[in-house]
């Protein structure tokens, strides 16, 4: 990447990215067999500065692996991962470490992501001290400041995680992620472990931080309703691939991919009258295993619109509809070609 002045330069980018795992199993005869799990199976995704991108999909679709691979917490099998103009693909941990302050992660479970033996103040100051960004005294001031920003009393710095509720712990985990002013944050299901009344509080916090720090983030979630209200762009994943991508308006109001349509149709709405008139679910069965070899479109086995071409060719992500979104489906490819 040679144009650092270009503001459209992605902060984080996956290029034809594949992440695969080998699993070895012995059967009852003791014969060894190797299977390849294709968790991320050829993904192009660029996240630009100041953008909130939501990644949605069902469990096992590879969304968490993609998020972790963008931070190089996973090895890259094929393709490349870029961060702010530098290629992270082949870098080892010593080379990655100085970059880590600029790319942070928030995990789903705030009960396991905070060290129970460390005081909140120590946990929060650690990124600053590890990366040599502040003296101890400065770190203390920064900790007090960030606690206030995430809506906690600065006096809690002397306490341990057990003294806090799930929502408060997630505030602390978010504070730790943003205290070193990172360029990019991956939040992996950050609200799914929280109670409903608290979920909205944490979403508000993400919105607030995005404005305050011009934060760029990838928000991974299985909850489509949540994502709709906070994302600038939405990517829908199915079995290791992005099948549809676009603005929340286009993806949610005019979904093109049959999988996106089925997913949206399955989300319940808090309206009993509407629920009673809901048509029966269109999606049958379950996604194939990411270890299975699939020819053609990976969704065709569950798709109501499968055509002969879907058996032989794998649809690429291409602009479809009125040009506002990209979709990997032959139903929409003819229109744009």
């Amino acid at each position, binding site marked *: 990447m040679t144009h650092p002045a270009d503001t459209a330069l992605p902060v984080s980018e996956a290029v034809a990215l594949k992440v695969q795992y080998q699993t070895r199993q012995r059967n009852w005869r003791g014969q060894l067999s190797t299977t390849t799990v294709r968790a991320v199976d050829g993904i192009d995704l660029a996240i630009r500065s100041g953008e909130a991108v939501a990644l949605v999909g069902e469990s096992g679709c590879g969304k968490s692996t993609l998020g972790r691979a963008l931070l190089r917490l996973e090895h890259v099998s094929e393709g490349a991962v870029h961060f702010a103009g530098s290629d992270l693909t082949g870098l080892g941990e010593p080379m990655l470490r100085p970059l880590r302050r600029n790319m942070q992660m928030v995990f789903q479970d705030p009960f396991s992501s905070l060290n129970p033996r460390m005081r909140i103040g120590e946990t929060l100051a650690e990124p600053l001290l590890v990366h040599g960004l502040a003296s101890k005294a400065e770190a203390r001031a920064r900790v007090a400041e960030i606690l206030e920003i995430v809506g906690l009393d600065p006096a809690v710095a002397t306490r341990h995680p057990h003294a806090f509720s799930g*929502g408060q712990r997630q505030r602390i985990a978010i504070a730790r992620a943003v205290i070193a002013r990172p360029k990019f944050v991956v939040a992996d299901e950050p609200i799914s472990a929280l109670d409903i009344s608290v*979920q*909205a509080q944490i979403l*508000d916090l993400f919105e607030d931080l995005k404005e305050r720090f011009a934060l760029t983030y990838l928000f991974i979630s299985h909850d489509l309703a949540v994502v709709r209200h906070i994302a600038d762009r939405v990517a829908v994943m199915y079995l290791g691939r992005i099948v549809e991508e676009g603005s929340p308006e286009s993806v949610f109001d005019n979904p093109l991919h049959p999988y996106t349509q089925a997913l949206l149709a399955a989300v319940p709405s808090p309206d009993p009258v509407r629920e009673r008139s809901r048509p029966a679910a269109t999606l049958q069965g379950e996604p194939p295993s990411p270890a299975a070899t699939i020819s053609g479109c990976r969704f065709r086995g569950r798709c109501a619109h499968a055509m002969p071409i879907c058996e032989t060719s794998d649809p690429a992500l291409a602009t479809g509809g009125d040009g506002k979104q990209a979709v990997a489906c032959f139903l929409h490819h003819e229109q744009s070609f």
Partner: protein
Amino acid sequence: MSRPLLDVKDLDVRFGPLHAVRGVSFSVAPGETLGVVGESGSGKSTTMLAVLGLHPKRQANVAADRLEFDGEDLLSKSDGQMRDLRGRRVGLIFQDPLAALNPLMTVGKQIGEVLIRHRGLDKQSARGEAVKLLERTGVPDPMRRASQFPHQFSGGMRQRVMIAIALAGRPDLLIADEPTTALDVTVQAEIVRLIRDIQQANGMGLVWITHDLALMARVADRVMVMYAGAVVEEAPVDRLYAMPRHPYTAGLLGSIARLDQPRGKRARAIAGTPPAMDQPISGCAFAPRCPVRFDKCAAAPPLVSLDEGVRAACWRLTGEQA
């Protein structure tokens, strides 16, 4: 209306200093679905486990003015009698089917066990019936699947197995405790349809516990909202969503993100967190988080009937406002 299937009055559950359920009353009629909503720690599961006699007697202190199933007093039953009741007349489905299934026993055997114990079938016919139950709960290839172990099933398929086990005793009442929470939305939709279809075919009573208000709108006939171990509101499902009476219910409904609303219309959070349950609660438990609290809330509000099957516990609704 006929006699309620399940009739509970003033149920209290304590674990030492922890007062988990505080004076809960409700009933379930045959063929009806009662939805129980609440956040974690609100006492919704504890209430149902107490009804089923599943709290260890050494740890839990369960008391009630009335705890009746089909007219029989449950509090005076022995452990053995309760076990018979659970396998046969009352079915139970948990959130995590992997934890509830025996990993060392084939699925067919586990269903068969219930049939042998509670329906008196012999081994041969239990096996055939188990395959039939798997087929009925939508497990493809039930013959082969019956001889497989739980780890060979996906999450959605395991939950179908759990449902098959719960239905094996042909229960009159099914208690489903967050049966779809661990599942994806598309699988959730299928499981919901399955349970509702079976209910309509058998006319069994159904208690559906969930924290998901959107899902509740799909499954329940009547909804009971719990907060801090007590019922704060109960209403027919349409009325609850159209006109929530308790400020907590209104707050909950306002705090869920919805797909069917214009973007930009954001969910509003309820400030604060629920109270600690090992402390005595004075006055209204929701008052510290309530946007419309007033001086009267220092005293605990009673759960009063408002109109046609609507009950709520809030001083703002009793016409005694300051």
